[in-house]
């Protein structure tokens, strides 16, 4: 089944028939976590880097922010039986405008917080496609654990 991950949303699956997908990431970041041993996988779509902009909302919907969202995503992976040492993390999104003067930094900040948080959790980023002015669609295929990025009609494995 195709399971759509909306903006500020996360889906987790153990079903090989599932495909997790999130559309038009913009400056948001999409992170796929996959444990090839237990075949547990998840995809998150976070809008903003830090929950301090709205703590109340972060309580209601942690997935909106990278700091609270990614922590929750990891926790749910562990709760289902995934092991930290097996987890493969891939990151896409964090795009920016044609903005040489770097006036709008949300995309870049989103990616920075992802990197910091995964580093703190001892998880390496296996692959990434971030930055530039691309609007990306990300899929996690639960049968193979493959993450793909689709951009301008072309889907490539990450």
């Amino acid at each position, binding site marked *: 089944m195709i399971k759509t991950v909306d*903006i*500020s949303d996360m889906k987790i699956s153990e079903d090989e028939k599932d495909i997790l997908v999130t559309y*038009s*990431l*913009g*400056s*948001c970041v999409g992170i796929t976590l996959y444990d090839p041993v237990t075949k547990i996988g998840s995809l998150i779509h976070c*809008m*903003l*880097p830090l929950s301090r*902009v*709205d703590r109340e*909302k972060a309580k209601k919907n942690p997935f*909106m922010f990278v700091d609270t969202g990614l922590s929750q995503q990891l926790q749910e992976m562990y709760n289902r039986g995934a092991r930290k040492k097996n987890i493969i993390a891939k990151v896409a999104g964090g*795009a*920016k*405008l*044609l*903005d040489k*003067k770097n*006036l*709008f*930094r*949300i*995309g870049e*900040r989103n990616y920075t917080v992802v990197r910091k948080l995964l580093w703190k959790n001892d998880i390496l980023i296996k692959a990434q496609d971030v930055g530039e*002015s*691309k*609007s990306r669609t990300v899929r996690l295929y639960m049968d193979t654990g493959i993450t793909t990025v689709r951009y*301008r*009609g072309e889907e490539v494995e990450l």
Partner: protein
Amino acid sequence: MKTRDEIISSLDHITAIPASITKIQRMLGQKEIDFQELARLIEYDPNLTANVLRLSNSAYFGFKYEVNTVHQALIRIGTNKIYDIVIAAAVSPVMNKPLKGYDLPKGKLWEHSVGVALASEILSEELDISVPDYTFTAALLVDIGKIALGTFIEIDAKPIMRLAYEQQIPFDIAERRILGIDHAEVGAILLEKWHLPKEIINIERWHHQPDRTEEDRMVVDIVHIADILTMIAGIGGGQDGLNYRPSKKVSERLGLTTKIHERVINKLISKIQQVYDMLTLN
């Protein structure tokens, strides 16, 4: 590929906005408005009537008692908001079409438009700037030129996209190079033909080149940034993605910071669904 002149002359044939709207607008522009007459004019159009009543009773306005007639709606809501409603009711079915040529499915451009309108409202609140009532409507119409180019004139946007990506230039500049005109100017000419107020046309024309406007700078600035923040949030983004260039001068004039960007996007994401449901009509 069609030329600039061919595109402009084909705009004459787009009758997407009902003739009654033009009359209603003219009436709303008068100093003394005859509500009876205005109500009758709206009631001539059953779809518009249904939509005005639906919007008037929506949670967004939060009235205590149900509005049953157009006349009641006019008195309750006031002519400024009625103007927004009439325009929204008229353009929603047009903007909610699939955007051909640009490869954008049904609903996406409309979602983006609602996002820009709402982001303008949130941004002006955040900056404590009071903007005129037409700002919301102008922001809602910001990409009508894309519908005109893509869906009605059916230009092929592929070469435009290719140029924008390969040379990393803004999408509107690529449109100007290939077509001799961009969607902002196309939209402005179309809105002129529909007799919309000149302030709305001005915003439409300069929303990607805000430093070129000669009047109403503050509102043009707000809508320019609202459009950009909506793109960044990925609301209704198309193949043109983030291929636009924000004006540095606008950011300086408005005193924008990363904190303000994040606060606006946070509120935008929370409210978009409610406003989208309210404004989306059939």
